[in-house]
């Protein structure tokens, strides 16, 4: 269907003896806000990495804006912007320089680049701070800057991996306002993950819930609530995934996270 901007069919990803993503299929329509929910270790981040060309799939077919992330990497990479779960700005550069760098990498030609950087920095209300080093920014400011950066090359799809993690309610509210606005104004497709169910309930038009590598439910928030006879999406989520707490083994990434905290206070 040409109406779908993301098509995933029978996607599987195996790491040695672990099946992180187990034969999942879903579609995202052009202009839709799509929430990809699941407990820790369910396979969310792995799926995002595959969709964004960072990991090759073991099996399955994927189309991102009509291109294959394995064989047409550059085409796919041009089509999306991304805000990663962990901060990915250069702390030693200024806000402006971070965007400039992104613009050069994505080959946005110069007069347009300058104009867009200004537009976006104003959009996320950081224009006045453009010449400050990113290391003096708060968590919320960094996230806003990452959102501006992800939009600089005018992507058709915007991936956000837990964009509001660790932010206060004011900033979270602000960020979702930007994203909803953008979705309405530019008809950009938004694909996000979050652990805050009320966020998904509020902004997502479609939700997919993944657990143990399998998609266990899909639909709009109202359908999921009706299906589980619950009042909120959080209750629906718990009804579908169970109340057991998931323990993830600490990988090298968690060690690095600790190290980073120590280094950066």
């Amino acid at each position, binding site marked *: 269907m040409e109406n779908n901007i993301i098509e995933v069919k029978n996607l599987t990803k195996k790491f040695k003896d672990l099946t992180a993503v187990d034969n999942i299929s879903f579609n995202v329509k052009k202009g839709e806000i799509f929430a990809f929910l699941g407990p820790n270790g369910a396979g969310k981040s792995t799926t995002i*990495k595959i969709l*964004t*060309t*960072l*990991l090759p799939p073991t099996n399955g077919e994927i189309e991102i804006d009509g291109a294959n992330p394995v064989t047409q*990497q*550059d*085409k796919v*990479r*041009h089509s999306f912007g*991304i805000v*990663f779960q*962990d*901060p*990915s*700005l*250069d*702390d*030693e*550069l200024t806000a402006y*320089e971070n965007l*400039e*760098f*992104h613009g*050069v*990498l*994505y*080959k946005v030609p110069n007069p347009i680049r300058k104009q867009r950087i200004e537009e976006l920095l104003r959009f996320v209300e950081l224009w006045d701070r453009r010449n400050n*080093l990113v290391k003096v920014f708060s968590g919320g400011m960094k996230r806003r800057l990452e959102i501006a*950066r992800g939009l600089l090359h005018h992507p058709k799809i915007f991936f956000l991996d837990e964009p509001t993690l660790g932010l206060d309610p004011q900033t979270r509210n602000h960020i979702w306002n930007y994203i909803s606005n953008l979705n309405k104004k530019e008809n950009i497709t938004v694909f996000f993950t979050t652990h805050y169910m009320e966020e998904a309930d509020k902004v997502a038009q479609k939700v997919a819930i993944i657990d143990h590598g399998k998609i266990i439910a899909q639909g709009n928030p109202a359908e999921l609530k009706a299906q589980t006879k619950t009042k909120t999406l959080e209750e629906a989520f718990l009804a579908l995934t169970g109340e057991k707490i998931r323990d993830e083994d600490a990988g*090298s*990434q968690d*060690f*690095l*996270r600790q*190290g*980073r905290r120590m280094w950066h206070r």
Partner: protein
Amino acid sequence: MNTIYILWLRQLKRYFRSRSRILGSLGQPLLYLVAMGFGFGPIFQKAGAGNYIQFLVPGIIAMSILFTALFSGVEIIWDKQFGFLKETLVAPVPRFEIMIGRTLGGATVSTLQGVIVLVVSTFIGFKISSLSMLSVVLLFMFLIAVLFAALGTVIASLLDDMQEFQLIMNFLVMPLFFLSGALFPLSGLPTALSAVASIDLLSYGVDGLRGSLLGISHFGLHIDLLVLTITTLILFTIGSYLFSKIKI
């Protein structure tokens, strides 16, 4: 081309912005120069080998380039999961260009570091024998810098976290430095040590610097140049291959 330039520029900006890092990385070479240079100077003189400071400075320049360059490559481990590398890896540019830009940036910074050590050492009495050779001196500095920045990239591409960093310091960087002839002349060594020194790539860097700065060389400048150029190309190729295979 723009990709390479912007990555190179980033390394330079980061360097010039961390003045504490510039000063900090001058501490160690200065300590070596003062403590060893003046400490062993009299013995060296008595043994009839001449002025030890003169002898030592090229070795210490090579050392500070080695440390700075290798670390600039190894920084990729840090960047791998956090920070910038992720941003560059999803960008629609060939990874090869990212690797070149980073490596050349790290190498430029390390060369500057070497130049600073050279300038500082003239204040404690170091004399350059012929100023006309300065371009050759710079060439050797840059070759050492690219070589070890590329080696750093190779290591960083193979390792997953900073836990192993101490291992690299103790089993790679320190031996490279101590066995290179940075501190002692390579002639008249026991055979085993001499053999080790001749497979230590830094030996050729130190020798090249000594040759171009003082006009004394153990292997000969042409051999130094040849060995450094070939190994740099090899490590660069391996580095860019491994870098293209990095998974995050």
